[in-house]
């Protein structure tokens, strides 16, 4: 499976993360997105006329939407990431999977503007990003009232992985995560999953320090 990848792209990271969590090995093909704009060059435009990355290639299958890539990786290697299929759960999973595209547009747009100097109406992007974070915070709180820690279920699904990167990187675009305790707990739960990998700006969980013990033998 070949992933056309950019190390700093949250959409590419979401696919790398899903592959790591499900034990799928990806063949990474780095794309010079910045400063080279290689994703708009003839080779990649032929593969994806939409001009975006990531692109996932597996034999005849070419995917250009990261949510579809998550579903493909899960279906192939670890179907439990697709939820139980129960009506409410299936609907919530789809709801948040589609919601993640709004995060790409607003929080992702603010980040590209602030970090890589891409054009955009920064005030509007941040306002929309904050509205999306408030919606996510409320959704996670309601799930906790149902006894569930993740967006669609009590276990993580592709919907959590789709939403996580742009949320975690919101501060890169000047949007603080301080007001959202449910989001911070959810982020911590995702970062503590077996097989979790980092990207620049998303750090691993550091080991909690051992409980303080009275020292012996030293004055």
């Amino acid at each position, binding site marked *: 499976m070949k992933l056309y990848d*950019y*190390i*700093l792209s949250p959409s590419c990271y979401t696919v790398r993360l899903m592959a790591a969590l499900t034990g799928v090995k990806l063949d990474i093909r*780095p*794309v*010079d997105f*910045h*400063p*080279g704009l*290689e994703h708009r060059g003839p080779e990649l435009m032929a593969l994806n006329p939409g001009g975006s990355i990531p692109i996932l290639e597996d034999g005849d299958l070419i995917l250009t939407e990261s949510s579809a890539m998550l579903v493909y990786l899960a279906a192939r290697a670890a179907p439990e990431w697709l939820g139980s299929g129960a009506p409410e759960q299936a609907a919530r999973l789809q709801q948040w999977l589609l919601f993640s595209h709004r995060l790409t547009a607003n929080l992702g747009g603010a980040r590209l503007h*602030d*970090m*890589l*100097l891409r054009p955009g109406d920064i005030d509007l992007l941040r306002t929309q990003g904050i509205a999306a974070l408030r919606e996510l915070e409320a959704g996670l709180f309601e799930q906790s009232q149902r006894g569930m820690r993740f967006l669609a279920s009590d276990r993580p699904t592709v919907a959590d992985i789709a939403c996580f990167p742009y949320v975690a990187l919101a*501060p*890169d675009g*000047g949007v603080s995560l301080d007001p959202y305790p449910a989001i911070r707990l959810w982020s911590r739960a995702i970062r503590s999953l077996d097989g979790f990998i980092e990207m*620049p*700006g998303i750090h*691993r969980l550091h080991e909690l320090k051992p409980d303080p013990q009275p020292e012996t033998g030293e004055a």
Partner: protein
Amino acid sequence: MPREAMIDEWYPVGLFSQLDQTGRRTALMGEPIDVALGADGKAKVTDGNGRALPVTVRYGHVWSSLGEPGKDLFAIPEADQPGRRLVDVGVVRVRCSPLRAVENFLDIAHFPFVHTDILGAEPHTEVQNYKVEIREDEDEVWATQVQFYQPQAAKSASGGITTEYMYRVPAPTCSILYKTCPPRPGEWDVITLFVQPLAEDLCDVWPWMALYDDETPMTDLIHFQQMIFLQDRSILENQIPALLPLDPGMEIPTRADQTSVAYRRWLKRHNYTYGAQLVAQ
């Protein structure tokens, strides 16, 4: 005016390879400027009033100044050695003082904690003693004989090695790092951080490299450096105070910070205070 002493310095304002005739609107120390390719194929930089500013093109970048530079841009003789790959890494904007960006680049102690498993790893966190000096003849800050254990020192390194470093600060917002070159022992890889001060608390950072590495594709070299720098960005944006303190009081240096101490001393000596905080608050 904090920018007075720094106004005659050269600053990076764009990648030469990315210039076009439409131009790039940017800023230098609070002044709007325009960087464009002239009809004669040469880089042109103008200020908000249309006044032409000094221009030089070197190390992949266009350099300019709001004042009158009294000397040429600093030399990097290694950059002209044949066989090196010259890597334009591209711009990254950071909401931090331009001086903070340089100071972070000079810091070795953060490698295991910020660049975990790449430039450093626990438990190899000790910074061995090394030599720091302000070279009077060149008027530059130098740190030499720096040694650090690194799991993946460069894209061309296949395993953990003890890497030797030299750091050099030839201008208030530029630093050059010389580093063990895994494929060619005896030579140094050159990794630079050129910082364009947009305001006292906002900068565009232009990393650039001149490496001996014939194997690694260019895109991988760019991504490696971008990955490293972006691991620093969120930390730079959260430093308090935002301006770099030049007087003791707010931040207490330790032995591992000796390059930072020398850099701050050198800045203060020259009154290079754009992006600095003088009186501890």
